[in-house]
């Protein structure tokens, strides 16, 4: 594997706050890499630094091993898909996709450009919409035009700033699958920004979790979900129960009416408050002996609990989340 994009202690200080606070990352060629974090944690700022729209206060950005900090955006070989797509309203779909080729490949003939645009439009299933204006196509189509416009230039890295958030939920899930499929097909490195943990977990080869301008953890979705190193990461990626001072995911907690025989050290008694039906499972809410709330995920085809029932919860030591970080 080789690194295509590297951030070294990248920092962006705005007059009133430090939006990006010394982050370091190495992204491999061909990877689908997600940057996940809550709104306002500095994701967009990081992307704008990589694209060149902002200048870093400190740190370095390397593309293929060469620093690009001194280069203006129009000389960096990265592409950006903007949050609201930013399609040129005065140009047709075809002209939008051809815009970058005309600027970046001045030596190509009209025919060569036409062929490339046609291929990109076909890839994004936009045939027949060439002559439309952005105002005359749907949200999903706009997004595909934005993708085609950047991909046609074959950038070293494609930066995507919450590209799915402007779509309605049904379309969002469908586009998620298409996006992953597309990335595999074109083989271009994606740096995907999102505040939706489900998107990050389902799409990424690797991901970074960001909080308050700092990267808290980097790893595969499985690593980050199952072995979060900070409390923030654990809670941002899913539910966490804090039992006897250790974190355990709802699906790792077991529940029964009788006290489990082995290993009573890790069992706590409590009372059921109620349950929430979620379709694929049920979340039972209980209050444990010391007043701690606890959520347990169960399969309701096996068993069910009613409010007021006395229960015992327990777990395997292997399922305890290995949180060591002191960050809050």
């Amino acid at each position, binding site marked *: 594997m080789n690194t295509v994009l590297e951030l070294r202690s990248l920092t962006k200080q705005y007059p009133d706050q430090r939006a990006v606070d010394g982050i370091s990352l190495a992204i491999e060629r061909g990877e689908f890499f997600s940057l996940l974090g809550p709104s306002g944690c500095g994701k967009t700022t990081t992307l704008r630094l990589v694209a060149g729209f902002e200048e870093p206060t400190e740190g370095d950005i390397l593309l293929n091993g060469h620093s690009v900090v001194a280069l203006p955006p129009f000389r960096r070989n990265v592409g950006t898909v903007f949050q609201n797509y930013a399609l040129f*309203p005065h140009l047709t779909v075809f002209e939008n996709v051809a815009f970058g080729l005309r600027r970046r490949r001045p030596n190509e003939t009209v025919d060569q450009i036409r062929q490339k645009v046609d291929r990109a439009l076909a890839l994004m299933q936009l045939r027949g919409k060439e002559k439309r204006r952005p105002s005359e196509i749907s949200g999903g189509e706009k997004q595909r035009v934005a993708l085609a416009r950047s991909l046609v230039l074959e950038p070293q890295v494609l930066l995507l700033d919450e590209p799915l958030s402007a779509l309605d939920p049904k379309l969002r899930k469908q586009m998620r699958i298409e996006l992953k499929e597309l990335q595999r097909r074109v083989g271009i490195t994606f740096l995907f920004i999102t505040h939706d943990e489900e998107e990050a977990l389902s799409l990424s080869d690797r991901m970074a979790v960001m909080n308050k301008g700092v990267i808290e953890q980097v790893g595969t979705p499985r690593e980050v979900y199952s072995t979060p190193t900070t409390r923030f990461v654990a809670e941002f990626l899913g539910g966490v129960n804090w039992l006897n001072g250790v974190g355990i995911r709802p699906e790792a907690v077991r529940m029964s009416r009788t006290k489990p025989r082995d290993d009573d050290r890790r069992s706590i008694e409590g009372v059921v408050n109620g349950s929430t039906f979620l379709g694929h499972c049920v979340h039972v809410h209980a209050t444990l002996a010391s007043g701690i709330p606890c959520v347990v995920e169960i399969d309701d085809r096996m068993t069910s609990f009613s409010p007021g029932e006395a229960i015992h919860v327990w777990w395997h030591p292997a399922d305890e989340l290995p949180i060591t970080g002191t960050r809050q």
Partner: protein
Amino acid sequence: MQRLRAWFLAPGYLVTVGLFAVPMLIVCAYSLLSRGPYGGVTTPWTLENYLRVFDPLYLTILWRSVWISAVSTAFCLLLGFPLALFVARAGKRRTLFLNLVMLPFWTSFLIRTYAWMFLLRDTGLINTVLQALHLTGAPLPLLFNNGAVILGLVYGYLPFMVLPLYATLEKLDPALLDAAQDLGASPWVTLWTVIVPLSKTGMMAGCLLVFIPCLGAYLTPDLLGGGKTVMIGNLVQNQFTTARDWPFGSAVSLLLLILVLGLLRLVARKEENLL
């Protein structure tokens, strides 16, 4: 409900009919009558006033009005576009700059035009300074020529170009400029391929707002042109004063109106949602 509506609309109708339609009809009637001995109009009815406009003397004046207005409008666009772009991108200080653009409106146009005369005349500030520095031997002919008129018109109507341009440029999504750069366009290319095409409506509106009053201007050519640069406005004014030919003055002013309306139609057809 219907009655209430009528009451609220009544003042508007009254003003429009009494102060616009009626005078308009009077002017129409005058233009078809003959000249009275001491001004005013008398019978018989005639079309002669309209035919006289095609006299080469008056066609020259018409042509001069058109080209001086066109050149002034072009200068306004050339100066106004960068200014509007600068104001639109000035962030928090936008309002301040916008107020500065409108500051001249706080003083009478007449006084401001006189101020230009004091600057430009042979014993004016500019010539005095140039001569004091021995850069010129004799005063430069800065006043009483076409150049001075164009300068005065550009100065007077620049805000009318800047404001509509500002309104369009301010609405321009900054992400589009980022997108252009991201796709390889330098700032200069971005200007020509994104900013200029997207501010076309503002440019058209601004050009109309400048060109139309320029075409009818009489104060500026009168004062800064010194009677040598006669434009349509001066011609009309003359007919009602020294020449005492009200019917001809009416005919010329109606032709000016038709010219402007025709121009508006032409532009409005191209730009549906203009103004």
